[in-house]
């Protein structure tokens, strides 16, 4: 198998600045998104994900401007998520230079949204973002509003349905693990990764490099997303790639 597993640093951006919530609550400033994205690219990031956590109406122009600047300087795929509710939001982000958009709550509030978006823009640029919490043995439910609102929707069934509707990738976040630095929810990751035919990105809970390996090897994820372990200089992306390579995973090691 020659396709490499991907490492995707995630920038949580609030009003034009990178921040990272711990359990989606406390916020620490980690700097300018374009500068950080450029650093990630130089370090060998396989993609970059930009989550706009402002998502307020007045914040949209700031976001588009940041995406525009990022796309002029960073030449790896860029995914943008946060507050996307309309086909026009997707068009504006793609025109600004995003390669993919990730859809979260709009898919729940508008059941045909993913299908309509896939028809317009193609599956290759549509990521379905799923925030799930464990609610029983081998059962996870979708939560919205930063984990505060239960929907009653089964996470695995939702992933299958959304990918059948045309989402080309799943960004799966465990709300239980997020911010704990105790590792991905591997059972959740594996349940979703084995159920869908598209690639799955594991997210939420990374605290060390072994967690990345676990997500790929035990969680069957195709890509791993992490924020704080890279931003605060704990590990470099190159270090992570060499660590995973040494565990037998196929990685893109050439420096960009």
């Amino acid at each position, binding site marked *: 198998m020659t396709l490499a597993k991907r490492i995707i640093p995630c920038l949580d951006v609030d009003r034009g600045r990178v921040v990272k919530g711990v359990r989606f609550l406390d916020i620490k400033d980690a700097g300018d998104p374009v500068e950080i994205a450029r650093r990630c690219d130089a370090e060998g990031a396989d993609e970059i994900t930009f989550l706009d956590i402002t998502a307020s109406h007045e914040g949209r122009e700031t976001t588009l401007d940041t995406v525009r600047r990022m796309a002029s300087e960073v030449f790896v*795929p860029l995914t943008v998520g946060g507050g996307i509710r309309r086909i026009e939001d997707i068009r504006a982000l793609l025109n600004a230079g995003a390669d993919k958009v990730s859809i979260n709550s709009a898919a729940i509030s508008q059941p045909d949204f993913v299908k309509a978006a896939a028809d317009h823009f193609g599956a290759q640029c549509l990521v379905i973002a799923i925030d799930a919490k464990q609610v029983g043995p081998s059962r996870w439910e979708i939560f919205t509003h930063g984990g505060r609102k239960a929907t009653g929707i089964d996470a695995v069934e939702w992933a299958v349905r959304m990918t059948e509707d045309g989402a080309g990738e799943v960004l799966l976040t465990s709300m239980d693990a997020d911010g704990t630095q105790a590792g991905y929810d591997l059972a959740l990751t594996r349940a979703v990764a084995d159920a869908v035919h598209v690639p799955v990105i594991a997210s939420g809970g990374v605290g060390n490099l072994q967690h990345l390996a676990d997500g790929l090897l035990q969680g069957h994820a195709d890509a791993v997303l992490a924020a704080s372990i890279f931003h605060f200089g704990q590990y470099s992306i190159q270090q992570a790639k060499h660590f995973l390579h040494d565990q037998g995973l196929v990685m893109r090691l*050439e420096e960009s």
Partner: protein
Amino acid sequence: MTRVAVLDYGMGNLHSVAKALEHVGAQTVWVTHDPALIARADRLVLPGQGAMRDCMAAMHSEGIDEAVHQALNTKPLLGICVGMQALLSHSEENGGVAGLDVYPGEVRFFGYDLQENGSRLKVPHMGWNEVWQQSHPLWQGIPNGSRFYFVHSYYCVPDTPELSLGSSHYAVDFCSALGRDQIFAVQFHPEKSARAGLKLLSNFLNWHP
């Protein structure tokens, strides 16, 4: 003076392609379907993203098919992703779609039961994969086997194996670059492939076939 026309027929992220070309030294990049600008450009880029049926319909309605046929053998053309697939005669996608038929060949679906060594492979083929090169000036300075960024569910099968200029492996060996004379086309996205991709775009700007 390098003037590049990125052929715009409303499909896909043309901003990325244009920015990457500017980054590697294109003096002028037009994102356009205006025949006058296409005629003035020294070289053309045919991008493409999304469903083949929609891409072909948009190409016909914007006159891109004419522009490509007129440009053949007069100026270098770089096809990217669906822009590569469109050069062949036919695609399996959307129940069967006719391509521009520049080269005889077919575009095939990877299938949803793709397996390798007993494990299932995800479709779309998404991420960084190795490209094994056939000798060509556009690979200059790029180590053989370098990884490029792919995202696609269909792959090109040209009737003439000699057209293949690069190959990759994802359960099957497939043609990831093809061309002849003034044409070079790739399945991956050079504009999203970091240093290797930028080098390929730079080689394209300096290519005098």
